[in-house]
């Protein structure tokens, strides 16, 4: 299974140069770029761990690629994403989000169905990786 979150998960994995061009696009738009990682890929997991603060005053995307690689050294077996944050009034949220690192094996998700009255069903989507405690997932 391939996690399809982010802007470019249907494309081949991004190279460092790809990451640089996309991060530079964000910087040129005035957005702060940040790096985050997680071992909980649930689609509603909003809060991945922050690899440092958003890089508010950084003009050069090479620094983003550097931080991605630093993050990979420590968390290379997890998901890493690059975010761009726009502080403009009326937006004040994320403008870009793309995955730049994946675990070697992506076990995917299972659907849990709780049958209710009539034919109604309550659904839960669970990552198989989440059966292990934090830090012990993805080996």
């Amino acid at each position, binding site marked *: *299974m391939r996690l399809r979150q982010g802007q470019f998960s249907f494309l081949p994995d991004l190279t460092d140069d790809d990451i640089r061009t996309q991060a530079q696009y964000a910087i040129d738009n005035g957005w702060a770029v940040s790096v985050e990682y997680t071992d909980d*890929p649930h689609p509603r997991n909003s809060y991945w761990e922050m690899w440092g603060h958003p890089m508010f005053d950084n003009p050069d995307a090479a620094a983003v690629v550097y931080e991605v690689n630093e993050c990979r050294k420590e968390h290379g077996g997890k998901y890493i994403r690059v975010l761009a944050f726009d502080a403009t009034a009326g937006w004040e949220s994320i403008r870009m989000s793309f995955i730049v690192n994946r675990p070697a094996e992506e076990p995917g998700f299972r659907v849990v169905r709780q049958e209710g009255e009539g034919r109604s069903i309550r659904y839960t989507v669970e990552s198989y990786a989440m059966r292990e405690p934090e830090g012990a997932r993805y080996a």
Partner: protein
Amino acid sequence: MLDNAKTVTDAKKRYSAGVMKYAQMGYWEPDYTPKDTDIIALFRITPQDGVDAVEAAAAVAGESSTATWTVVWTDRLTACDKYRAKAYRVDPVPNSEGEFFAYIAYDLDLFEGGSIANLTASIIGNVFGFKPLKALRLEDMRLPVAYVKTFQGPATGIVVERERLNAYGRPLLGATVKPKLGLSGRNYGRVVYEALKGGLDFTKDDENINSQPFMHWRDRFLYCMEAVNRASAATGEVKGTYLNVTAATMEEMYERAEFAKSLGSVVIMIDLVIGYTAIQSMAKWARDNDMILHLHRAGHSTYTRQRSHGVSFRVIAKWMRLAGVDHLHAGTVVGKLEGDPATTKGYYDIFREEFNPMALENGIFFDQDWASLNKMMPVASGGIHAGQMHQLLTYLGEDVVLQFGGGTIGHPHGIQAGATANRVALEAMVFARNAGRDIWNEGEDILRDAARTCTPLKQALDTWKDVTFDYVSTDAPDFAPTPEVSA
């Protein structure tokens, strides 16, 4: 002898029983400067032969505010000067003989806050059948901030919708399930599952899918939510399907909406034909229940399409942003349905901007401040396919739902392949744009490159490469940008 175009100020003459010109009654005030708090309406009027344009404009002002066909003494029990709408400007329409633009200002106290029904009962209530006019079209409105603030606005808005879906930086993708009538619930859910798993964010009920003998609504909702959750697990993404809750009564719509909520749907859908009050009620329900509200503009072309008569879609768009829907169809430019690029840009700006400056070349006649009301997500749907991705991204930008119904389900290798083709084309085009490539001119190359590692995209491009819809638009702006004169 009274001047036909001048307000009669002598109270005795003004209120003597009988009939007088609307302009004489005070509905034409060429010196009037609209107040910041006035609602302004711009009408395109086509007077009957022999009817003076100014008198026609005054008549529209009169009939859409306080007037009736004859003088009434009871006006004098009110502050009638304040309540009379004032036509203050009449311009001939460029290149259209017999048509005029009439600007009419309405005092804010003529309206109940927060009610589209009340606004429309005045502005389009009586005047459209008025005999002295051959035709009448409401082209645009300026809504003062004080009035905008009395409305809820979009239940969710573009920003929070993206946060809920965890989807940023690219247009969202959707598809309407086809055939639009006749599938059983189980078969219908199959289409939803395949399309979402293949890469779409949304699937959609069509406007006329409600609860018919071949598929009752509960069946559809149950199978669709099985499909949504399976697809979510298969991709690790949030998925949605617009469950159409349109029904005969509010009670029935609430019941369907509650069921959709209980099954965990992120989005429900209504049709424009349910009416303005029902739309506002559903928008309130959607805000109260964390639900994205999709509006299908079923029926709008009956009054938006012809240039001389009806209501422009840009006005409908403004009303719907006030009323509080999150999604609304707004044209594709390149697809099978009406919409030239300049006019469509005007609609998109009304949906998505904080402030619309006057832009006659896009059909926008007034500055419009949206007072921080949420933004609406435009939906582009009807005859579009992966091969047009560079044009779609250029014309429509990033905050839009691109809906490929036939362009997904009609893929020669199945629905999943169709969805994947669209998603890969989209991501490749966004990536190329961000990387600084000229997607307008290099779009076909970009798609062909992406197709090298994506067979479904190659098949899609081969199947639909020559499909275009080149027809003359029936509703283009009246003003072209003046070319800059260079030395």
